[in-house]
């Protein structure tokens, strides 16, 4: 049997995980646009979303939608706290120091989650049934459709936020021209604070969406964070559309690679792609507002 025969099924698997990479990537971009910070705790938001929902559902006995909502709200609060306690005190420090600080916060969050909620892996029940749908020889879990639908809604929300509201425009302004934003009386710290909240919320939703398909555990955030970062760089660092495209491309390529090379190298594929992008097109597929192409 030739590898080509199972490509449709592989692509459909890749798109599901791609949607998650896109959401994580968007989380990175949202914060980076507001403050130029790369928030390496982004993956932990995803992990916390899944783990807290699991905890509320199984131990707290809350109904599923309420547990999910409470989890998203708590993760948003954690996002705000991350800004207040880690990023804001270091606002005058250089970017590499902030980067290390978020890395430290990420280790702190994952260890705390391991201590509070336990280290064993956890899976949530699917939103609607286990029976997979068969469409033209391709099997799809209903949860994948939930992932895609919710991702789409989040993207619309984010688009409206940044293009149609004053708040979004203020966030945009403080990233493109900090001095100009200051002169117009936009509080940049407030914008970064809000960006942390938005990106934590997106991460948490991504976590709740995928935990029924895959599983989550206290140390699952690191890998998801890295993949999301790669997605954002691949699509074009600093662009929302870039992170989305990068996520789907990365998911599909990762999944497709299995058809041609042994599956043991599946994770390596993402990093090889990152290296190739950094060598040959550092501004990403769609180009990046932060990387001046003339320098390359």
């Amino acid at each position, binding site marked *: 049997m030739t590898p080509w025969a*199972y490509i449709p099924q592989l692509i459909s698997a890749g798109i599901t995980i791609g949607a998650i990479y896109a959401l994580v990537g968007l989380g990175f971009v949202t914060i980076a646009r507001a403050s130029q910070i790369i928030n390496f705790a982004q993956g932990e938001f995803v992990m916390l979303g899944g783990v807290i929902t699991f905890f509320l559902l199984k131990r707290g006995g809350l109904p599923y939608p309420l547990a999910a909502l409470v989890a998203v709200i708590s993760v948003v609060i954690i996002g705000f706290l991350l800004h207040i306690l880690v990023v804001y005190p270091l606002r005058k420090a250089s970017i590499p120091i902030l980067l290390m600080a978020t890395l430290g916060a990420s280790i702190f969050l994952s260890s705390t989650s391991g201590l509070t909620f336990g280290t064993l892996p956890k899976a949530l029940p699917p939103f609607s049934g286990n029976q997979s749908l068969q469409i033209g020889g391709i099997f799809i879990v209903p949860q994948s459709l939930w992932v895609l639908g919710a991702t789409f809604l989040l993207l619309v929300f984010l688009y409206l936020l940044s293009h149609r509201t004053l708040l979004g425009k203020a966030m945009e302004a403080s990233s493109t021209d900090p001095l100009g934003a200051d002169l117009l009386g936009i509080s940049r710290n407030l914008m970064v604070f809000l960006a942390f909240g938005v990106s934590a919320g997106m991460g948490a939703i991504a976590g709740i969406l995928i935990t029924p398909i895959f599983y989550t*555990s206290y140390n699952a955030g690191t890998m998801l964070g890295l993949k999301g970062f790669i997605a954002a760089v691949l699509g074009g660092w600093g662009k929302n559309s870039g992170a989305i495209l990068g996520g789907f491309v990365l998911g599909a390529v990762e999944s497709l690679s299995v058809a041609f090379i042994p599956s043991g190298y599946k994770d390596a594929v993402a990093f090889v792609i990152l290296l190739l992008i950094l060598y040959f097109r550092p501004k990403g597929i769609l180009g990046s507002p932060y990387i001046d192409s003339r320098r390359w």
Partner: protein
Amino acid sequence: MKGKKAIILWISFLILSSISWATPAYLAEKSPYKIGVNLELTGPWAEVTKTVKRTMVMEVEKINAMGGVDGHPLDLVIEDNGFDLGRAAANMTKFARNKEIVAVVGPFEDNLQATTRAIAEREGITDIIICPSNPMVRGLKQRWSFNIAQNDIIVSQKLVDLCLARGYKKVLVFPGNWPLALSLAEYFKRFGEEKGIEVIISKETHKPTDIDMTPQLIKLKPVIESEKVDALYASTGGPPGPIICKNMRTLGIKIPIIGTHAFGFNFIIALGGEAMEGVEFGAGKPVVPYQLDKDDPVRPIVIDFDKRMRERYGMGADQIAGHAHDTIWLIYDALKRCHGKVTRAKFRDALENTKGLKSCHGIYNYSPTDHDGLAKRDMVFIRIQGQRFMRIKFPGFE
């Protein structure tokens, strides 16, 4: 002046508390036998090793309440290795250099055992390891190291029996890419082919950290269909097991799944949910304490242990708790047979001469050529049914 007083008070308090900790007053007349415990108390398996620690503490308390070993209490010196090779080695060396320590228990993970075994061999101290041995370490024929879990050979033999009983003629193996999973697959192929079962080991493997096996299984699906495979054997441990089951059912692969003894944990069922229904495997007896035969020699031990665990910690016995229980009783038994003259070398010889010791997992027999203890008869067939472990029996195969 005030500060100094406070420091002195503190120091004396610490000394006093440490003394009272080390030697309970009622057993103060004879020195304790100290056992070093080198466990992954933090890191990915923290929850599982917590069970190990709790069980060992509970069993040691029971032994001490019974009067210890000929009046000497047992004393556990517990150190965390944080799932880190360096720290596991450091703990092992520290225990080996401490002349009071008679033997060491741990580590729990396969990846760490090669190192601590080497240190045990060099320093001359017994190391009882809570995971199965693998062909690589068995090949070294180390004198000082003992494993207490069912090894890959007997697990594979048990699974071949399962296939014979179920009438599977052709089995596809989807192994993990780590040594123990691969050797389970290899032995399964060897023993299976001796009994006339056709075994295909897939070239696709998976990693312990893979959260999605769909791509691999998509590639295996045409093989399963064209070769008319009767069952898929997931030679793996930990989260990948339920993920394989879930992903297979999602892709519409309906053939039966057989698993390893690592499927015998409640969190595995919780992870896999409905997809785990009908999965069959061979596992240790503590998985189904109340479904063992009435005349099973270890049934009363397992049930008593299960009751005490439920009473004290609110959780029943499982395989890992069973291993921890057996470790302590093996140590107790070997110390007893040292007849009061306990040295490291005497303890090792006594442990190696363990014969017919009944404990949770079965009947332990060690010998100079067998440091694994258990045999095929110490395993039972399990089927996951209604989200619970059900024992299944086949005439002629136990």
